[in-house]
C-alpha cells in the first residue's frame, strides 16, 4: 500500500491531465521517492493500476528512462557528469577520484550503503562544469578536494541518521 501522503500527491497529479496514463512519469517519480529511491515489482503493479495501463507498459517505460531505479541506491546518490563540456574540464578525473575514494564503480552502491555513484550524460550545467548531482541538488565547478569535503559532511550526516 502506498503511504497516505503519496496517495494524495498522486490524486493531485491525476487531476492535472486529460487521461490517467499521461501522469505516469510524475507518478513514478513520487512513488520512487516515497520508497527510498527505487521501485519494486509490487509498486509497478500498483502504478499500472492507477494509470490504467499494463504492467508491461510500465516496465517498458522504466527501462527507457535513466532516472528510475530498480535497486536501492545509497542514501546519497551521486550523478557525475562526464559529457563533453564536463570532460573538457576534468569530469572524468572527478569520476575516477570518487570511484577510488569509495572503492566502487559507477553503477554501484558502496558497501556502507551511504553512497552510490552513477556516470551520467550532460546534466545541463555545462557552463558550471564539472557538475555533480547529489540526490536532488546540483554541485558545480567541482574538483576532487571540494567533493571530498562535501562527501565527508554527508557521510557524517548519513551515519548520524542511520
Amino acid at each position: 500500500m502506498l503511504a497516505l501522503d503519496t496517495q494524495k500527491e498522486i490524486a493531485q497529479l491525476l487531476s492535472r491531465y486529460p487521461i490517467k496514463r499521461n501522469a505516469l512519469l510524475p507518478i513514478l517519480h513520487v512513488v520512487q521517492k516515497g520508497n527510498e529511491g527505487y521501485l519494486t515489482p509490487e509498486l509497478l503493479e500498483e502504478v499500472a493500476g492507477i494509470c490504467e495501463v499494463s504492467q508491461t507498459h510500465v516496465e517498458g517505460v522504466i527501462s527507457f528512462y535513466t532516472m528510475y531505479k530498480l535497486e536501492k541506491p545509497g542514501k546519497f546518490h551521486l550523478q557525475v557528469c562526464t559529457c563533453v563540456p564536463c570532460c573538457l574540464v576534468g569530469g572524468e578525473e572527478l569520476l575516477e577520484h570518487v570511484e577510488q575514494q569509495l572503492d566502487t564503480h559507477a553503477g554501484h552502491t558502496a558497501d556502507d550503503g551511504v553512497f552510490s555513484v552513477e556516470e551520467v550524460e550532460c546534466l545541463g550545467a555545462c557552463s558550471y562544469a564539472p557538475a555533480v548531482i547529489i540526490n536532488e541538488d546540483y554541485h558545480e565547478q567541482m574538483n576532487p578536494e571540494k567533493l571530498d569535503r562535501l562527501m565527508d559532511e554527508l557521510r557524517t550526516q548519513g551515519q548520524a541518521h542511520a
Partner: protein
Amino acid sequence: MLEETLILFRNIRNPDYDKSLKGYKKAGGLKALKQALEMQPDEIVQLTKDSGLRGRGGAGFPTGLKWSFMAKDTGKPTYLVCNADESEPGTCKDRELMLHDPHQFLEGMMISCLAIGCRHGYIYVRGEYWPSIKSLNAALQELYDDGILGKKLLGKGPKLDLTVHPGAGAYICGEETALLDSIEGKRGHPRVKPPFPAVSGFNACPTTVNNVETLTCLPFIVNEGAEAFKAFGPENNAGPHLISLSGHVNKPGVYEVRLDANLKDIIYDFGGGIPNGKQLKGVIPGGASSSVLTADEIDVTYSFDALAQAGTMMGSAAIMVFDEDTDVVKLLHRIVRFFSHESCGQCTPCREGTHWARMIIRDFLNGNGNEHKLKRLHRVGGNMMGTTVCALGDACGMPIQSFTTKFADEFRDVQALAA
C-alpha cells in the same frame, strides 16, 4: 569590447531583483499579459510573425508561423507544451530563466497560450532539473493564489492552467515528438511526420511545442513591439538570445547577446580567452550536434544565417571551446558515445551507425586506425544524415563528418604515435 544585451536577463542581472511575483510586478512584469488579453489571438500571432522571432530550441523555426499552422475548429482542445528538456550537451540557458526569473518565462507562456487558444499548457522539464521544477512550481502557486491563473486568466480572461511535467532522463525527449510521447506516459520515441504536432500532437490534439527561451521573448515583444525586437540583430535574425559558453575559457557562463555579435568576441570578451595562455584549437559552436570550427574559422557573426553559411549551425547556442592540448579524437569519441547512448533505436542508420562510428573511433584510440577506417568513419557519418525519423542521426553525422575532415591529420597522428 562586446557588452551584454539585457532584455531576457534584465532582471537576472539586477543584484537586487526579487524573483517572487511581487518582485516581478514591481519590475514592470505582467503588463504585457494584460495587453495581450486585450488583443485577438490572431493579432498576437501576427505580432510574433512581424517580430521575426525564431525558435531558440535548436531549429530556428519562425515562431509566429509555427503558431499559424495550428489546426482550427477541430472540436478538440489545443495545447502548448513548453520544451524545457535542455539536454543538448553544452546547453544550460533555459535553466537560468527558470531558476532566476520564472515569472518572466511564465508570462511569456501565458501570452503564447492566448495566441493559440490553449487552456492547459504543460512545461516538460528534464527530470534532473529539480531546482528548476521547484522554482517553477513555487511561481505557479503564486499565480494561482493571486487569481492570475485558473478559472479566469487575470480575473477576466479565459480559463488557463499550467502544469510542470518532469521528464526522467532521456536526451531524445528533447525532440518535440518524442517529448509528446513522453508526456503522454510512454517511452519517448520520435514520431514519423506528417502529421505534425500542429495537427496531431499531445493526445492527438493540435499542439505547439516551443522552447523556454522562445516563450520568454514574448513579454518584450508585446511591450515594445516587433520593430524593437528586430533591432537586436541583422535581417532575418531578430532579437537578443542566450548563449551557453563552456569548455576552455576563463569565464564560462550564460550570456545574453545580440544576434550580430562576433563569435571570436564572444569567446575573448565574455569568455576572457583561453586559460593558462594556451592557444585555441577549435570551437563547437551550437551544441554537440553542430559541425566543428577550427581556430581560424571563428571570425564569424554568431547568427542563424551566418553560421549556416559557415557550414555549421547555431543550434541551441551552446558554444564549447577547446584548447591546443585537446585530443580531438578522444573528443569526437566522447560526442559519438553520447549519441550512441541516446539513440532511441528505432532507425537502423542511427542505432547501428552511432555504434559503428564509436567502434571505429575506438580503434584509433587503441592504435588500430588507418586511412581506410578514417574514410569509413566519414562515410558512416554521412549515411545517418537525412535517412532517419528524427534529426538525431544528422546530429551525430555532422560532428563526425566535420571532425574527420577538419582534423584528419590528428587522426593520422594518433595512428603514427601508436605505431
